[in-house]
């Protein structure tokens, strides 16, 4: 007797249609956030980045001291009043750290976004159109790649220091400089993907539907590259924050604004390491490390979200599912036996 027959016999006999021990109620739908398939790595990385963002954007609302408020003298030790002591100018280190983290994050966001926009635009144009357009754009990209970006960054930053345009000397200017020098790797990666997408049949169908080239690039190619663009953006964000720190440590940071790199620059300039004033250089280093680690970890966990084959714990889940199936089959078999005995 098959399971279906035995279930039918049970139902005719007035017994339960579903064998005992099996769920009779429909299972509740998963909450929306669970359908995102975020693994533990994603939550850890989001937690780290969230902590830094909270320090940078929410912290100043509750902290009594401002970054421009002189509260002590050179390198006062940490105390109950000033948790991380004071820095070389007598400002509260934690207050400066909050402002620095905020500016560094803003620079990273702006620069990363600019780099990804330029990289994706050039990559899609080259990959989709191909021919001499691809040759020209990729040739230009390779030239930009061949020039050491730190040299370009330093040269442009120095030239911006002497400009009369105020905003170019600050956070926005620095983000622009980093953004317009950081796009080539994104362009190359996107070009490779775009040229692959361009050969798919849905592109031919779009052409046959009368779609024009810009429409095809935006509607038919770009959505297929979204996962790459998001991952590239996260990486660009991390590298832009590190680039800002490098420039600031060389004394080419944003004029009139704090940044993590500038904190390190002043700490080195005023012998914080030699005098043992660890509170001047260690907090910005830790925050920088947290941002870089969090973003790189986020990038690798995004890889798992976009590519389910890379997900960890899959074997464990499969084993659990197999065990559930075995348990269900066992209960069904027991139920069948009971029905046959009764018959």
């Amino acid at each position: 007797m098959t399971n279906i027959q035995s279930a039918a016999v049970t139902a005719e006999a007035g017994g339960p249609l579903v064998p005992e021990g099996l769920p009779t109620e429909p299972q509740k739908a998963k909450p929306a956030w669970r359908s995102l398939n975020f693994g533990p790595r994603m939550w850890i990385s989001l937690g780290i980045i969230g902590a830094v963002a909270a320090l940078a954007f929410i912290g100043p609302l509750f902290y009594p001291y401002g970054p421009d408020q002189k509260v002590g003298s050179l390198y006062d030790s940490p105390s109950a009043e000033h948790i991380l002591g004071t820095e070389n100018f007598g400002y509260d280190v934690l207050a400066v750290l909050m402002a620095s983290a905020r500016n560094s994050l803003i620079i990273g966001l702006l620069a990363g976004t600019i780099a990804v926009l330029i990289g994706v635009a050039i990559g899609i144009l080259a990959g989709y159109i191909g021919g001499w357009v691809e040759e020209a754009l990729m040739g230009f990209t390779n030239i930009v790649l061949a020039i050491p970006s730190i040299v370009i960054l330093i040269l442009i930053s120095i030239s911006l220091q002497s400009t009369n345009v105020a905003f170019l000397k600050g956070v926005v200017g620095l983000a622009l400089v980093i953004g317009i020098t950081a796009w080539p790797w994104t362009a190359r990666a996107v070009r490779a993907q775009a040229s692959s997408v361009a050969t798919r049949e849905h592109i031919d169908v779009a052409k046959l539907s009368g779609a024009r080239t810009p429409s095809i690039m935006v509607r038919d190619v770009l959505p297929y590259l979204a996962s790459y663009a998001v991952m590239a953006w996260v990486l660009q964000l991390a590298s832009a924050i590190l680039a800002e720190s490098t420039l600031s440590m060389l004394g080419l940071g944003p004029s009139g604004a704090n940044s993590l790199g500038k904190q390190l620059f002043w700490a080195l300039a005023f012998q914080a390491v030699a005098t043992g004033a660890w509170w001047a250089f260690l907090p910005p280093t830790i925050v920088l490390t947290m941002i870089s680690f969090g973003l790189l970890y986020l990038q690798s966990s995004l890889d798992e979200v976009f590519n389910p084959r890379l997900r960890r714990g899959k074997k464990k889940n499969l084993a659990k599912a197999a065990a559930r199936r075995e348990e269900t089959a066992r209960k069904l078999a027991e139920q069948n036996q009971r029905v046959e005995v009764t018959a």
Partner: protein
Amino acid sequence: MSDLDSLEPRPATGQPVLSATHVTKQFRVSGGHITAVDDVSVDFHAGKVLAVVGESGSGKSTLARMLLRLMPVTSGTITYNGKDVTHIKGSELRGYWRDVQAVFQDPFSSFNQFYTVGQTLRRGMGSQGLEKETLDQLIETCLGYVGLKPADAVHKYPHQLSGGQRQRVMIARALMMNPKVLLADEATSMLDASLRVSALNVLQDLRANLGLTVLFITHDIGQACYLADEVVVMEHGLVVERGTTDAVIFEPKNDYTKRLLADVPDLKGSLKVRKDV
């Protein structure tokens, strides 16, 4: 095409609508080139079904892509209604694509998976300036031709449809443009047997009811004989045999055609029965 009346049958004139004349396609490879299509000439007559048959690598899909102007020819000419369309570009090419449509092999990869069926169908009509009601009615008509109801399809994404439904939607999409020529490139090869017959019947009906000129590309000579008025057999980029379906089946001249026919069990008997009916 801009209204529903245009989905009316067209009379078969017997004149070639689409022609490929001495068309050759070569691909560059390291150390030389390979010839995928070698000096092929074929005519497509209005209201007829022409099948191009051959094994994988025989050049039939390359020929179709050249006819569709999705791939440039190395040499030769493609003529549509007497006009040379071999090198047209821009709006002229888009105009050509309104008249010459295609259904491809893989019914899933033919869709942009980010758009619903409704969005996919409406896309081709974006430049026509049709009112919403007219467009909805056109979608209903075209889906109706392929046996689908708008309520069952337009709000669905491709992954929510079966393989047969996807291929039907793709045929409906082509019909939305009111084409004069429809190229079906292995359009049934990825469908299972029951869906395959139904897709073939849809193509048969379109030819009978709308007078569409159909180019049916397949590796299955059985399907070609079921659907086509004329058959062209290709091998290694060359046309090795051509003729009416009856002539190719009952009096094959080329050994390759004979081999293809030998692979189809009882094809002659089946064809006799069909023709008797």
